């Protein structure tokens, strides 16, 4: 399948701290992908690398077949809505649409205007005076009017209330279904994404823990409940993602390699959210006892 976004061993560091390292992801065309991870996991960094705002310090990134940092021609095929949906706050929505027309060779002004009209956005009011949800809609309309082949959104709903959040995602999915664009959407709120996406990338501590279609993820993971597990191999298990133990019992979230037939274990099919949480919980933030000057 055609890959619209490919990274290979991608890394980015600020000073000596790697915010993203060894990230290898490949996103097939037409997918709606969500990029999940806690704050500071490197989600924004990955998106900024994908749109050429940042230069990779290691590895490579290709968006629409070209390295976006050194090849600004790629920009015309990319739609990007940055975190907190930045817009010139003294511009009106109408002026922003006009601006987009001046700055992009391919620009569907009708699409943007129709969208904003349907959403009831006032055209002649500075966008700084619109609500957060309306502003996010204006930013999305600007990104969609480029008719992008790859649309990247960085936590577009983080600042919205639950109702506005749902409306935003609905209208996003509606227009994506029409245009057939590939979408990569980052969020630290899992519930928003689960409903709508068919591909998931999990970032944790600057590394990609998981990057696969949702169906494969759900089919390839099982939750096993059984007696206290001490690390011995289990038939049909490729890797243990997360293990939690009580005195007598262990609950394991595992990546499978075939069916688990061992009668010792009760096998459960976990939800996507449970699998993602298992990956995120696997390595929590390192304790900082030393920095705080207390004993562990």
């Amino acid at each position, binding site marked *: 399948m055609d890959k619209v976004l490919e990274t290979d061993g991608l890394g980015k560091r600020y000073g000596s701290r790697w915010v993203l390292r060894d990230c290898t992801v490949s996103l097939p065309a037409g997918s709606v992908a969500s990029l999940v991870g806690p704050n500071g996991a490197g989600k924004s960094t990955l998106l900024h690398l994908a*749109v050429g705002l940042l230069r990779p310090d290691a590895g490579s990134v290709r968006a629409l077949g070209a390295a976006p940092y050194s090849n*600004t021609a790629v*920009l015309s095929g990319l739609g990007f809505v940055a975190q907190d949906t*930045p817009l*010139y706050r003294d511009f009106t929505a109408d002026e922003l649409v006009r601006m987009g027309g*001046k*700055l992009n060779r391919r620009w569907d002004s009708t699409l943007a205007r129709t969208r904003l009209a349907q959403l009831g956005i006032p055209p002649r009011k500075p966008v700084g005076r619109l609500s957060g949800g309306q502003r996010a809609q204006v930013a999305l309309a*600007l990104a969609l009017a*480029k008719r992008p082949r790859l649309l990247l959104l960085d936590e577009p709903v983080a600042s919205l209330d639950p109702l506005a959040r749902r409306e935003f995602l609905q209208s996003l999915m509606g227009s994506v279904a029409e245009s057939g664009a590939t979408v990569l959407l980052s969020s630290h709120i899992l519930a928003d994404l689960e409903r709508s996406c068919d591909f998931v990338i999990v970032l944790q501590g600057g590394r990609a823990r998981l990057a696969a279609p949702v169906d494969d993820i759900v089919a390839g993971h099982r939750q096993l409940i059984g007696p206290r597990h001490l690390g011995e191999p289990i038939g049909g298990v490729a890797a243990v993602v997360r293990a939690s133990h009580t005195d007598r019992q262990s609950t394991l979230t595992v990546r499978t390699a075939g069916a688990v037939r061992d009668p010792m274990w009760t096998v459960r099919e976990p939800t996507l959210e449970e699998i993602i949480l298992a990956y995120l919980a696997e390595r929590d933030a390192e304790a900082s006892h030393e920095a705080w000057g207390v004993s562990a």
Partner: protein
Amino acid sequence: MIWLTWRQHRRQLLVTVAALAALFAVLLPTGLAMRSAVSRLGLEACAGATPPPGCGMRADQFLNDYGAMALVAVLLVVLPPLVGVFWGAPLIAREVEQGTHRMIWTQGVSRRRWALVKLGLIGAAVTALATAYGLGVAWWYAPLSGADADQARFARLFFDIQGVAPVGHTLFAVALGVACGALLPRVVPAMAATLAAFIGVRLAVTFLARPRFMDPKVETTSVYGGKLGWNAGGGDWVLAKEVRQADGTVVTGGMVRCPPPGAGERCGAETELGLRPGAYNYELLQPADRFWAFQWIETGLFVALAALLIWWTVRRLRRVA
């Protein structure tokens, strides 16, 4: 891009034009008043090689009325750095501070083109405004320049507010602001850095570089007789004034004028300072006719510095994120 530049900077432009108009609203009537005073007092005749008697008194009268204008003129040196602080510094710093660089640099226009179009248009606007300002002030200042050697247009401070030098200063201030904004992408720190760096560079150029733009000329006059008074020096930029003995040893700073020997009067300074025959006044100066050469050198220097800063900024911009 042109529309965007206009839309984003039109308010700045209107404010600057309005400020310039307000300035001219003051300069025009006072300039005309000074000119009519010059002709009323007959000061034009005093500029000649052999000024008629009474010129000193009439010049004093003119300075009594209008000398304070020179103080107004001094205030004008702050205008170029203000333009740098308010036009230059926010150009990149505000985009980054508000996060809008992520929106604008991911449209279909590369950052390089974004920067070059914006800087080109702003540079052109600033050049036009600064030229109008510099030539307007030069016209306004001309009568004051002729009335007092210490306030001649070639002197420090007065040189800086007129002619084409303000164009160089203003372009440099804007480029410096833009560069500071690329280096410190926060509006207020970038503004502060712009102001500090501008003052530093301007002082260095004014006091260290400008006196050496061309080799200064040495002029010596006998302490007996010699010209002093109205339009003394004829607008030269005097770098040093000393009284020297015939063998060249420096007696004191400043100038001494004694009546010609044999006139019957005794010269107080002669005995106080122990001047021996042959003592002379020594002046190190840049002659008045070099004014425009110096203006162009100063402007060229600052435009070159501005170009260097812009080149650096456009390169640096690729790493701003």
